[in-house]
């Protein structure tokens, strides 16, 4: 049935392509694409798979997807192990800005996850490469534990403001200092703009709200380097030598993980752990390729349907 539907679709396109202008072809593709989105989810999946190349890479979010603080998501270690047996590359992508790559690795290894430091790609790494490229001297509003990823960067007489997740720095005095620097012309760089994240004691404000407040006060636009920016995903994938159409992203943040990945041309799987809240899957358009309970279910889906 799969190949019949595909044959029918290509026949339809071929008939028209000989007779109509480019614009009509675009209109038709739009109609088909819109129809697909309102189809039964199974049909939608079949159509979205058509035109995609074989899966080569899986990008996996960390906080909220593989673990919540110091507790692993049940079954996640085994699921990762199964995924590694398949012929796909795996990369761990995270907007976590409180910890350096080394800290992240240590925590995950303590939770019995099998991974290496070079498989981790963080928004801190993305920020550092931007600072080096533009030769900025940053005021780093990042947690002390994340500073290690910026060793070697000159921070004297700062002329740029870098905002990560840094509750200790989000006080009135420090934000005023950052605000005045930006008014004087310093660029504002946001490691990411997550609205909030899940802590042991409940939800907590991410850097996004503070970046938004500074943008409003100084009438400027921040340069965002982390998820859901397209370049974050393409940068992570280019290290694996594959294109977005050959990759899938698994995460708990519907906008930053799934929305961002799909916008970059990847498939997105939303998991109902971490910061997920009921109804999140309806907040992005197109909706997630799949919404499932947790990481092990996402891996099962990949192994059964996407390889």
């Amino acid at each position, binding site marked *: 049935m799969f190949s019949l539907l595909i044959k029918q679709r290509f026949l339809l396109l071929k008939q028209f392509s000989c007779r109509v202008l480019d614009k009509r072809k675009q209109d038709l593709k739009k109609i088909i694409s819109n129809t697909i989105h309102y189809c039964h989810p199974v049909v939608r999946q079949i159509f979205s798979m058509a035109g995609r190349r074989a899966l080569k890479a899986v990008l996996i979010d960390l906080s909220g997807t593989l673990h919540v603080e110091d507790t692993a998501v049940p079954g996640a270690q085994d699921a990762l192990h199964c995924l590694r047996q398949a012929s796909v590359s795996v990369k761990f992508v995270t907007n976590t800005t409180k910890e350096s790559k080394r800290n992240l690795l240590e925590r995950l290894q303590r939770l019995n996850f099998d991974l290496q430091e070079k498989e981790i790609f963080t928004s801190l790494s993305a920020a550092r490469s931007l600072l080096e490229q533009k030769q900025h001297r940053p005021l780093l509003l990042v947690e002390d534990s994340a500073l290690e990823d910026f060793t070697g960067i000159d921070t004297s007489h700062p002329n740029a403001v870098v905002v990560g997740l840094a*509750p*200790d720095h*989000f*006080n*009135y*005095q420090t*934000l*005023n200092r950052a*605000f*005045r620097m930006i*008014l004087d012309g310093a660029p504002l760089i946001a490691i990411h*703009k997550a*609205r*909030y994240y899940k802590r042991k004691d*409940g*939800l*907590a*404000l*991410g850097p*996004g*709200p*503070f970046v*938004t*407040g*500074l*943008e*409003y*006060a*100084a*009438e400027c636009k921040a340069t965002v380097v982390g998820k859901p920016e397209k370049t974050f995903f393409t940068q992570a994938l280019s290290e694996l030598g594959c294109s977005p159409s050959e990759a899938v992203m698994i995460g708990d943040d519907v906008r930053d993980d799934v929305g961002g990945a799909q916008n970059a041309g990847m498939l997105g799987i939303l998991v109902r752990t971490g910061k997920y809240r009921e109804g999140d899957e309806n907040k992005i358009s197109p909706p997630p390729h799949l919404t499932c309970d947790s990481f092990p279910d996402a891996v099962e889906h990949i192994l059964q349907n996407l390889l």
Partner: protein
Amino acid sequence: MAATGWPGFAKSLKGVILDLCGVLYDSGEGDGVAIPGSIEAVKKLKASDLQLRFCTNETQATREKFVAKLQRLGFDISVSEVFPPAPAAIAVVKQRGLRPHLLVHDGLLQEFDGVDQTNPNCVIIGDAAEHFSYQNLNEAFRVLIGLENPVLFSLGQGRYYKETDGLKLDVGAYMKALEYACDLKAEVIGKPSLTFFQSVLNDMGLKPHETLMIGDDLVNDVGGAQYCGMKGVQVRTGKYRPSDEKHPTVTADGTVDNLAQAVDMILKQRGF
């Protein structure tokens, strides 16, 4: 035909509304500092035939406290002439049966005595200054994110203001932070809300076209007043920045060095 440009239109004015911070005085350590010429300017306006009111987004202290501060600085001003946002906000929550979680300056809390704050179903945010700690903001955020129908009232939406030791973030920045975090839109009580300006005009018994607003905040004072149908003049004191004179959306009816100059020009037009 009556003049519509500045300062010509001053001939047909019946009332003037003044902003406080940045026009009468600059806030800062202690009581702050009166802006040169402003005390005299207020006296001259009161001695004229123009009605006078003060419209402020001041939310660091109760009305009584900051009027007392201005009187100590030498200003001839009384509580009944001053319109800050907190009393308006209290009226709104009472009318709508809402119980607020407050993220405001300690100095303003007293204003809310008598308002039921148990089991909050909305948040009121004011200029909390040092109280805008991560923890306090997080608490306000948690109240909102836990509500089925979250309501956020912001006492003003200013971007920043000037104190004696430099520019400081105003409530607007934190309002935007919570709006973004919770994906909602705040209701602004205070300048530049239309209903807020209207309540002042009602008190004066005047129509918008008979009234002039003088302020240092181009968007919230001048722009807000113009949106209401009043004239708006900006002073080059307080939070004024030269780029204000090339603003993409708001053009002041007039720009003057300070309140003293504005008042002299007005009274000259009226033959004084």
